[in-house]
Structures are given as C-alpha cells and as structure tokens.
C-alpha cells in the first residue's frame, strides 16, 4: 500500500508508473541490505521462507503482481519460489520451459528479457505470448542469474493489471537480488549436504557393533560412540581428550603403543589386549584401526571389539580338545595294559609251570642233572623274555612327547609287534609283516606313531571278527612310495564297507563298534598330518576289506 503512495510521489516514464530504482528514498537499497544480511545468517531450513518473504517485499515495493525464483539446473527450468499478490491468478505454470520456450531459451543464453507490453515479443515467441496472456500477464521482466560463470537460474517479475517499464537500473538491482537468492540457496544446499554427511557419519559410528575411537597424534581420544560409553561405563566428559593409556593396564599399554606406532608408520594396525572398565573389569579386546588424514591432520581411527564370547568359545574348544586327547590317552593306556598283561602272561605261565614241575620231579627223586639244568635254563630264558617285554614297554612310554626324532619306521612296527600280535591273537588273526629293506628314516614322535600303528592293527583285527578263518590275515607293509615319502599300509580281509560307512570312517565319534569311541582314526589322521604325511583308506579289490595307508616324509625331505 505504501508503494502506491511512492508511485504517486515519484512518478516515472508513465503516469502512475512506480519505479523505486529511480527513487532516491533508498527503500530499495534498504531492502537489498536487509536481504543480503538476512540470507547470509539464516539457517538452511528457514531459507525458503526468507526467500519467499524477500519476493513479497520486492513485489510490494515494485507494485507488481508476481515474483518467482527459477532454477535451471539439470537443463530444466523449475520454479523454486513464488509470490503472487492479491491472492488471485496465483496458478503457476507446471512446465515453464514448454509454456515459455522462447523465454527459457533467453534465460539459458543469459539474456535479460524486458517486456513492457506483450506486443514486444517477436513472432517466434508466439507460444510464450499466448501463455503469458493466459496467465493475465501484461508486462514482465526475466533476469537470468549467473553464478561462477554459468546460468544457474533466474528471477522474474510480472505485472497483471497493467503495462510498465523495466529500466536498466531496476534490472541491475533485480539481477543482484537474483544472485543473492541463488548464492543463499547454493549455500543452503551445501549446508544440507554437509549436515546429511555429518548425520550419516554419526549414524555409521553409532551403528558399529564395536567401540569406535578416534585418537589425535598425541593419543588423545577425540571421538567415540555410545557403545564405548556403555561398555566402559564412562561418561562423555570422562572420555573426551583423555589419553588412551588411561583405559588399559600398564602391561598392555606397551603393546598398544607398538600397534599404534605400526599404524602411524604403515597405515594400519591391530592389537589384542584387555580394556579396563570404570568398575575395574578387564575385558578381552581386539582393536583394528587405520590412519586417516582429515583436512591435513592425521588421526588414528578404528574399532575395538569385546571378544569375551570369542575367548570363552576358544577356551571351550581347547578344553574339549584336551579332554578328547585325555580320553584317547586313557583308552590307549587301557588297551596297552591289556596287551602287556597278555604278553607277560606267557613267560610267567611257563616259569610257574616249570618251577612247579621241577619241584615235583625233585621230590620224587626222578630228575637227572641234565633235566634239572634244562628246566632252569627254560626258566631263565622266560624271565629274560619277561624283562624284554618290560623294557619294550618303557621304550613305548619313553618321555619325549612332541619331540621329533630320527626314526626307522620298520623298527617302530617291530617294537609294537608283540602288542599288536596280542590284539591279532585275540581275534584269531594272522599278522603278516612285509617290511621293505633299506627304508629311509623319518622324523617323528615315536609314541604317537606307535599309537597310530597299534590303532590301525587293532581296527583291522576287529574288522575281521565275523570272517571265516582263511580270510583273517592282516598284512602290515612298508614301502618307499616316492623318493620323499615312506608309506605304511595295513590291509585287512574284513567285510566290504558300504559307501556310507566308507565315507564316514574318518569322522570323529563315528564307530561301528559297540564299545568304540570313534576317535581312533580321526586322532590318527591328525597325528600323521602333524607329521607332514597323509592317512587315508582304500577298499581292496575282490570284495574284501580295506587297506589303511599313511605316509611320512623321509628325514631329508622333512628338513
């Protein structure tokens, strides 16, 4: 309403035509100043309202009817802000670049279009003229906004009721306003993007399952996530800026420092240690991190995981393995004891029988010196034999668990011979040894290898339980399979295994025996593999039984 007054006071080219740009009352200058200050300091979310408000003030000041801000990004003209006075004819075009194709072209080429009346439009702008007329527009100005050397949009003002002039000074000011709007919008968009990035980073950090950390070059904690506060029990104030060493035990700190040094040097680092909580608990902790340079400064950034569950699981597995090994050992010892009992029985029986027979004969006086001597010689040799068994037993149990010694495989097989023969006898099995001459030595643990061989012989013997006598033959053979491997085979004449049985025979706890644990073969395989060899089974031809094979690298190859 003020504008009308202005118009009356300050007439321009035409009577009643208001042109504040030419006025000297400075209200347009005031508006420009307000806008430039207001748009700069405003938060992004309030920007749209501020621009519309600015448009309203300009429309009012110029005494026109419509003001719009256009954006030409993506090769398309879009109305981003609009203001229409008097509430009428506020319907905005949906596709300005189609309805106003000629004008759009002018905007794109950076040209200002001033229309005091529609008749000034050239013939090729017939469509634009029609569209303008439909909107009731009689006079308009369209000022492209050029930022950083390119057209980014435009501001346009239009008069509905009447025709008017758009002098140069006004156009210059409108272009300036256009640049102010565009600059503010660009800054708002950048701010929005930045805020989105910041929120995204925050969300990522908080979504981490572990404890986030960001340390500066001095090792002070700059950023962290809620997980860290929750696990450690410290508040933000107790964490911010504190040196990492305050949260670990003294003996761990040296290790952490080493990992950090590595990270600073090589870009990444890993460390496993314990983290101390505020209430004094020690939590197993695995930290991985990398060096990140942000705006010229380097930081150590990464995540630490509470690995208690993992540690517990690891401990459990280790304990189970130990238990399994113990069970296997106890059962092996039990079997060994039975084998020894059987072996010692023979000479003890002979000694006892000979002694009693000799006493009986002496009592009757019917024994010659030669006979007496012969009986005593038998007793002596059986006592020697019993002693020999004890000696071999000591060999078998000789300490040196895990120790790799130079061994003769044939010698190991011969040493277990008496014990395995006891097993074979138990099942009426004939044990045949077919040992290669001049076999190279291997490196290994004597006791473990003996266990494997005994186990294979026992399995083979038991497999033939149900077979007719002629087939109960177990052949233990050694060969030099290749220049690098000695191969031991144990061939039985047991029943043919089904595909399923054959496939499952190496699985732990799979057994076909009523009293078996089912760990012999899988244990044997681990022992052989630990020696750098392989343990496998093949089915014999002719429908009978299986052959167990294992290889051991010869001493030179193993080294």
């Amino acid at each position: 309403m003020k504008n009308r007054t202005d118009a009356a006071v300050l007439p321009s080219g035409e009577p009643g035509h208001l042109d504040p740009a030419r006025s000297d009352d400075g209200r347009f200058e005031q508006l420009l100043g307000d806008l430039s200050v207001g748009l700069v300091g405003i938060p992004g979310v309030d920007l749209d309202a501020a621009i519309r408000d600015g448009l309203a003030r300009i429309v009012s000041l110029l005494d026109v009817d419509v003001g719009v801000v256009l954006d030409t990004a993506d090769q398309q003209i879009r109305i981003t802000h609009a203001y229409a006075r008097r509430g009428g004819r506020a319907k905005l075009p949906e596709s300005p670049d189609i309805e106003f194709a000629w004008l759009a072209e002018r905007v794109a080429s950076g040209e200002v279009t001033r229309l005091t009346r529609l008749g000034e439009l050239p013939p090729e702008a017939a469509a634009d003229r029609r569209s303008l007329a439909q909107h009731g527009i009689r006079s308009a100005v369209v000022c492209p906004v050029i930022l950083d050397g390119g057209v980014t949009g435009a501001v346009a003002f239009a008069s509905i009721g009447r025709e008017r002039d758009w002098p140069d000074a006004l156009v210059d000011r409108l272009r300036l306003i256009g640049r102010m709007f565009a600059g503010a919008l660009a800054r708002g968009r950048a701010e929005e993007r930045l805020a989105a990035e910041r929120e995204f980073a925050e969300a990522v950090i908080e979504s981490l399952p572990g404890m986030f950390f960001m340390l500066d070059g001095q090792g002070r904690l700059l950023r962290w996530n809620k997980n860290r506060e929750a696990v450690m029990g410290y508040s933000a104030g107790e964490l911010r800026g504190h040196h990492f060493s305050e949260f670990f035990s003294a003996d761990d700190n040296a290790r952490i420092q080493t990992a950090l040094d590595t990270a600073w040097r090589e870009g990444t680092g890993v460390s496993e240690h314990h983290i101390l909580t505020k209430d004094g608990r020690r939590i197993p902790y695995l930290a991985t991190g990398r060096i990140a340079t942000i705006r010229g400064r380097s930081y150590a950034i990464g995540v630490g995981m509470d690995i208690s569950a993992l540690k517990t699981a690891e401990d459990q597995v280790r304990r189970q393995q130990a238990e399994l090994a113990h069970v296997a050992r106890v059962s092996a010892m039990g079997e060994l004891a039975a084998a020894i009992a059987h072996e010692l029985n023979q000479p003890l029986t002979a000694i006892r029988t000979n002694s009693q027979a000799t006493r009986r004969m002496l009592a009757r006086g019917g024994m010659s010196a030669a006979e007496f001597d012969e009986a005593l010689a038998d007793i002596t040799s059986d006592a020697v034999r019993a002693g020999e068994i004890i000696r071999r037993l000591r060999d078998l149990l000789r300490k040196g668990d895990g120790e790799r010694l130079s061994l003769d495989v044939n010698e190991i097989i011969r040493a277990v011979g008496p014990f395995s023969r006891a097993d074979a006898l138990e099942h009426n099995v004939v044990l045949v040894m077919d040992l290669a001459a001049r076999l190279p030595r291997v490196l290994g643990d004597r006791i473990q290898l003996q266990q494997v061989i005994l186990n294979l012989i026992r399995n083979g013997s038991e497999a033939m339980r149900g077979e007719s006598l002629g087939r109960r033959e177990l052949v233990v053979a050694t060969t030099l399979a290749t220049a690098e491997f000695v191969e031991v085979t144990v061939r039985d004449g047991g029943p043919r295994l089904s595909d399923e049985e054959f496939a499952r025979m190496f699985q732990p706890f799979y057994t076909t025996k009523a009293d078996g644990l089912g760990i012999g073969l899988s244990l044997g395989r681990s022992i052989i593999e630990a020696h750098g060899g392989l343990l496998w089974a093949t089915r014999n031809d002719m429908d009978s039984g299986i052959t167990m094979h294992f290889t051991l690298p010869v001493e030179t190859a193993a080294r």
Partner: protein
Amino acid sequence: MSDGTVFVIDDDASVRRALGRLLRSAGLTVRALPSAEEFLADPPDDGPSCLVLDVSMPGIGGLDLQQRLRAVGRDRAIVFLTGHGSVPKGVCAMKAGAVDFLQKPFDAPVLLDAVRRALERDRVERAARERHDRIRERFELLTPREREVLALVVTGLPNKLVADRLGTSEKTIKVHRGRVMAKMRAQSLAHLVRLADRVGIRGTDV
C-alpha cells in the same frame, strides 16, 4: 593213571615245553603241538586221551577246534587255557562240554587235577561207547524178522499177540524169540529190554 595221552596245543613254545614237563612229572604221556592245524592234519588214533588247548592261537583257535571236533562226532575231553579271563568264551567252552577253563598262569595241581578229570571223563565215555558198540554188534547179527520180533517183545506183548501181529503162529514166534535172546546174550526179558534200549529200540507199535 598213566593210562592215556595228553595232547598239548599251544603256539607258545616255552609254555608248551613247561606243560610237557609238568604233565610228564605226573607220569602222563604228552604230545605237544604248536597249532590246531597240525592236530587236524594228523589226527591221533582212538586211544585214551585228552586235550590241553590254548584259546588264543593264530589261525584256528581253541574254541574253533572244539567246534570242528564236535561237528565230525569226535568229541574230546578238553581243558582250555586262556591268557586273559574272557568270561563269555569260558561259558561258551563249558557249555560245549569243556572239562575246565583255566586262566594263565595257573597253579600246577589245578591243571593236573583238570587233566585227570579230563582223562577220567574220556575213560568213562570211551567205556560207554565200547559197551554200546558191543551191543550194537550183537544187534547187527539179528535177521530182519528177528528185529521185528524184538521190537514187539520189548513192549511186553505175549507171544500169542506178537504172532497175531506178525501173522504167524505162536510156535514160530517162540523160536524167533529164543534166537533173539541167544544172539543178544540176554539173561531175561528185563535184560533184553535194557539192551534194546541201549541201541535205541524202545518197542514199536507195528
């Protein structure tokens, strides 16, 4: 007591020698063999004997040998020796007629006692077998007609009814009956019934 041979079968040479020495000290005749196969390859003749047999031997074990001998009707009195007291095996052996099942190392008197019992059982069984064989020999002398008469007579039928059954005269039956009594060397009807029973004739209803 020196009556009979003890066959010792054990794959352990030393145990074999010791057993031989002990058994000979008791005045027994001993034949020691290293395997059941050797025993089967050269089976001893039918003289008085018993077996001392190791259970666990390569190839044919003690229990296998026992079963094989039974299968061919040559049951023997057997004392088993075992290195470890396997109860199921012992039960199995005893059920199959073993005299004893001893765990090594055993006490000499215990073994000798078992061997004596084995020989005694062998003697008793042998005597029974011989008696049976003798009666059988007499029975073999009877004609088919005389066997028919014997089968009816031992059921207690009087001569008249036997004659009716066989479709002949009482007089003829009397003659047959006299011949049967003579050939079987029976002193009385009761004696004849017992003899017939030994060879498996229990009076038939013809």
